[in-house]
């Protein structure tokens, strides 16, 4: 009886240890403050909104897609993504990019776009016809 629990217990400890280790290895933190993003030297998930005024650029030869992202404090950051423009980028407001900030740009390896909460009160400015 005892040896069974000892055996099982050891396996559980090893399992949990392995999981904890791998978790820290593949862990990515969410960061909504770009000042922090720009100083961090590891992969993060930066959340912000796409600066529509600055448009986006698709570079066919290098196969990159770049645009500007802005955080809640207004800090802007250029993002370069090695891939194609996501399907609903035009209508996206919030964007989450996964990657690292290096040499002046945020090198994104993943983009998540979120559609705006459709005109729920505050987003709409008022004016009459």
């Amino acid at each position, binding site marked *: *009886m005892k040896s069974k629990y000892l055996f*099982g217990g050891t396996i559980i400890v090893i*399992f949990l240890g*392995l*999981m904890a280790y*791998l*978790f820290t*290895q*593949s*862990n*990515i*933190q*969410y960061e909504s403050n770009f000042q922090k993003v720009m100083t961090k030297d590891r*992969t993060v*998930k930066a*959340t912000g909104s796409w600066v*529509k*005024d*600055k*448009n986006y*650029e*698709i570079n*066919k030869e290098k*196969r990159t897609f770049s645009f500007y992202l802005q955080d809640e404090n207004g800090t802007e950051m*250029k993002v370069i993504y090695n891939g*194609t*423009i996501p*399907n*609903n*980028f*035009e*209508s996206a407001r*919030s964007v*989450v990019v*996964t990657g690292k900030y290096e040499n002046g740009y945020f090198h994104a390896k993943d983009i*998540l776009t*979120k*559609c705006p*909460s*459709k*005109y*729920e*009160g505050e*987003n*709409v*400015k*008022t*004016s*009459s*016809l």
Partner: protein
Amino acid sequence: MIGSIVLSLALLSSLIAMVMFFLNYRGYKNTLNYGRIAYHAMAMLVIVGAALLWHAILTHSYEYKYVYDYSSNDLSLGFLLSTFWGGQEGSFMLWLLLSSIIGIVLQSYSSKRGDLEPRVMAVFTLATTFLLVMVSPMFKNPFAFIWADPTFVDIKNVNSAMLSLPFLQNFIYSDGQTKQQFVKMTADLHASLASAGISVNQFIVNGKGLNPQLLNFWMQIHPPILFTGFSMSTVPFAFAMAAMMKNDYRDWVKQSFPWVLAGAGILGLGIMLGGYWAYEMLGWGGYWAWDPVENSSLIPWIIGVASVHTLLVQRKSQSKGGVGKFAKTNLILCLLTYILVLYATFLTRSGVLGDASVHSFVDPGMLVYLFLVIFISAFILLGFGMLIYRWKDLSKNIETEESLLSRELALFTAAVVLCASAIIVFVGTSAPLVSHAVETTFYNEMQLPIVIIIGLLNGLSLLLKWKHSKGKDLLKKSVLPISATLLFTIIVSVFAGITNLMVILMILAISFSLFVNLEIAVKIIRGNMKMLGAYVAHIGIAVLVLGIIGSAIYSQEQDIDLIKGQTKEAFGYKMTFTGWSPIENGKKYEFNIHMNKGGDEYFINPVMYIASYNNSLMREPAIKVGLTKDLYISPVGYDEGNGETGKPVSLAVGQNIEYEGYQIQYESFDRPDVTKMTSGGDIEMGPKLVVSKDGKTYNVEPKIKGSMGNFTYVPAEIKGANLKIEIKKIDPTSEKADLVVSKLVEDTPKAPPKEVLSIQASIKPFISLVWIGVLIMVLGFFVSVGRRLKESLI
């Protein structure tokens, strides 16, 4: 109005049913019939409610916010019907509808098995009550009117004939950024319209519509099947509770077994349908992204599968009388299956995964969030509270020692490993709750060894006998499958050139499982086919894993630019882009690529279009399905060839942009001479720009020259920087300039404009095995249901 009333009555009936069933369990004699009547009344009312919602959708009754938000006039019947589950209110309605129907079957089933009915139904109706509260006017009511909470309706969806109504002007708003105009639908506007004799249905004539990516057959069936799986998971929970209520842990095992099997089979199918949709529709070439929402439905499935195996052991060990082994484990696992389904619901609907998942929906608000927390807490407290209460009685069981070489121990270990797998997914999925995320490598690296262990355990457990096996016998039995496994693994590894040790071990383990099950299945086919269930399911899983190994690890991709008329070769396929044509009434465009492989010729047609739903570029892949591999063509972009090659920018005074390493700063706006403008003379205006790089500075000003009403655009050319800056337009009031920046002299001589279709072509080896494997697995589940259904009555 009537919809809300129907649902409120259903809620009342559910409560009455619950109370009646509970009282009956407590010994009050007459209450059972009342409970039955109340339950059937609830189910009828829910069905009527669902019919009313479908009716509102089909008749385009945009007075209902839900109908406005998720449907539109242009949808075909099939898609229109599926908008029922397009949003949260509707998907809760769907869950409720399916649960109600399942409850009818459950009521009949449990009534034929002793005193099971009141206990099981009391718990089941608690679940339906919570769902009914969720769709009640308090929370996510599908019948809420569009003016109940102010809603901004796009002006294009409003009856144009009514736009001139005087009282309407106060309700018109425009979005500063997009310049779109909206009518604010409020209770006041509703009142004004009503007094003018106009119904909201006459006023709002079209809905927002559904995201075009959801307008797909697989999306039509994935939610209903998935939610059936979710609803089914309520049943094992109810059975576990019923056992604890009576403090009798023997019969519930055989009685709940067919339900656990059916639920796991349906849920598994539902999950994979979601993956198939992603593969066929989204264009990234995969079917499983370890997305938190995908994961949250996988976790209860894994637990459900684990419970199947421990229930089996308990069933088997009851043969000599008594409760059997793993009584506590089975209660815990069956309680957890439903609780994890509720947790999945919480994760996807509460908005906590907002930044983590493409699936995450808009924040539903504090009230709904709190209610979801209450919902899941109630069932955790109820289930585990009961378990703690009964713990002493459960511990009275004498646990017999099982030998090391027994099927019982192998199955128990398998269940433990499955739970470990579920915990891994749970941890990774819940990480965003604490602002962390994990890369997909976390899941892949941890699940890989688990798959290997499961494969080996599965084969081993079937070679082992119940209670005890002699080492010698075990070895003798395993000779055939082990040889087949080694042969298969060697052949596959050599043929495919596999050098990765983990992958080889995976193939070894899973083929071991495959051959053990195949051998047994072949023996059974000649006998009682009903016994085939488990073996077929395991074979299905083995096929699925082999398909995953092929498609996930060994797929190849290549980015190709196809110039119209020119043939390029990739993966042995000769591809030629021949042109494009409109499809689906001009809503979408298919791009025709002629394929030639070894004489076999056909067309592959990926699709691209701008969706009116969100003004975004949408892309759909084209897939050439094959047994040994899929050819996957994902469209990336299309260049007409005569477009601008420059970068468009929009600048206000003081702003700057960067191009090719140069900083371009908009210093000031050179205003036109107003007096000259009014007198009709020649004028000039333009943005004064400072272009700089590495210390070198250029001051330039592209201009718009006007002479007698004719305007000419003069670009600024900087030879030293090889830049050309043209004006597209300037707003003299805001001084905002829309410019195009490009290279003055192209690096390569400008070729004549040509149409280019950019694609990403990939080969997905053996991906068909993934779908086939799942189907075989589901088939196995249902064969088992057939077998265990009969046994549940004994």
